[in-house]
């Protein structure tokens, strides 16, 4: 299991952090933020990585970083390449790749909504899902969803008859 020669060659042209085969047809590339767009452009131009499958964002709270993962698929090589970049959590800004891959429009918008990452030159960073949300970006690790839910919503406080009987006998629900 090795990286196909043509891909290896292309990757060699850029100062990358690392590249390795993680599974059959899965290549992980760690790139520097400054040269990720160039990388994607090379891949698209030379090796037919036309299809942007997804852009994922991972919030690494301890490191104070957002990890952006660009999953691109090449029909030519039958290979899915995941390009990882780490950007500082504050201010959390990065460049859009909309000009290169139109689907990025959706994913960048989604990441902006869920993580608060700002993509410079993105097509639209309008809210899509959380149109009336005024809390912090919910997918951030420092947002405690459960606490928020407990504070915002009420839950049923059951007290059926069988429970009353048991409580009368000295039992009851345990915490």
């Amino acid at each position, binding site marked *: 299991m090795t990286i196909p020669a043509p891909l290896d060659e292309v990757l060699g042209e850029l100062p990358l952090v690392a590249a390795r085969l993680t599974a059959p047809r899965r290549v992980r590339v760690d790139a520097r933020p400054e040269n990720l767009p160039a990388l994607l452009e090379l891949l698209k131009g030379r090796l037919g990585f036309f299809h942007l499958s997804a852009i994922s964002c991972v919030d690494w709270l301890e490191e104070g970083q957002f990890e952006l993962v660009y999953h691109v698929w090449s029909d030519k090589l039958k290979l899915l390449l995941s390009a990882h970049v780490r950007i500082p959590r504050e201010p959390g800004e990065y460049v859009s790749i*909309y000009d290169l891959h139109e689907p990025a429009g959706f994913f960048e918008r989604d990441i902006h909504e869920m993580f608060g990452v700002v993509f410079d030159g993105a097509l*639209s960073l309008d809210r899509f899902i*959380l149109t009336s949300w005024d809390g912090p970006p919910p997918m951030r690790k420092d947002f405690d969803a459960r606490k928020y839910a407990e504070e915002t*919503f009420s839950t049923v406080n059951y007290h059926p008859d069988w429970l009353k009987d048991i409580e009368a006998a000295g039992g009851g629900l345990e915490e």
Partner: protein
Amino acid sequence: MTDKPLKANERPPAGAEEAAGPAARDAAGPGQACPAPSPQERGVWRKIMDRFADHCRARSLFVLHYCTGCGAIELPPTITSRFDMERVGITPMVTPRQADILLITGYLSIKTLKRVILSYEQMPAPKYVLGFGSCTINGGMYWNSYATVKRLDQYIPTDLFIAGCMPRPEAVQQVLLQLIEDIDSGRANAWRDYYRNYDFYLGNQQALFGPKWNTPTDVIGEAEHYGLAGEGTYGPHTKLLAESGGTPMELARAERPARAITGRRKP
């Protein structure tokens, strides 16, 4: 999404408490069907007419065609050949204005809840609400999610709940048959509770949507029209309505309307 304290667990004023007959158990709190008006309110003739109306009403019910959640996937089977609900005169209806039944098919995201309330208020009384599955009862799978409401009956009065995640078509059949029976026997009166305790429901709605929350329907006016306006109808929350003065359209715009993400980038 506001720091306003939630009113969910607050007992409504006496409106819903005057329990009577079989429904006594059900008057436990908000959202439970509250009893039919007591005899001294209406004359015997009117009562007979009511019974007759209920009897006819129960034979032809339109279900609002609104798939609010995953439970909706079991509706097509329910209304089509296999579990054919048209046998008992139940069929989907596209507009709230002509619908009798509002099915809340599972979880409600806050965004959907707004539309549900708008639809519900557009429906003409008497109207009936059915809660599908765990999510409408106590949050279900999404009990710790930030996006879905946990208790339907805190926001609109609910006639019947049905267990399941999601309920099978047979279960949906049963809940509809049960509803028909309740309507026929004049027990399905949850809709009155909305008018009787409008302030309670509005309070919970405002707790989620903000104090400026408003709808085009003049609920209080309708409450007075139906003779259901009680001390539970007016309250601190209804006062806010006058001040807010925003229509849903304005509020919708306030929701930062999105632009298309296709085509040429806007300058």
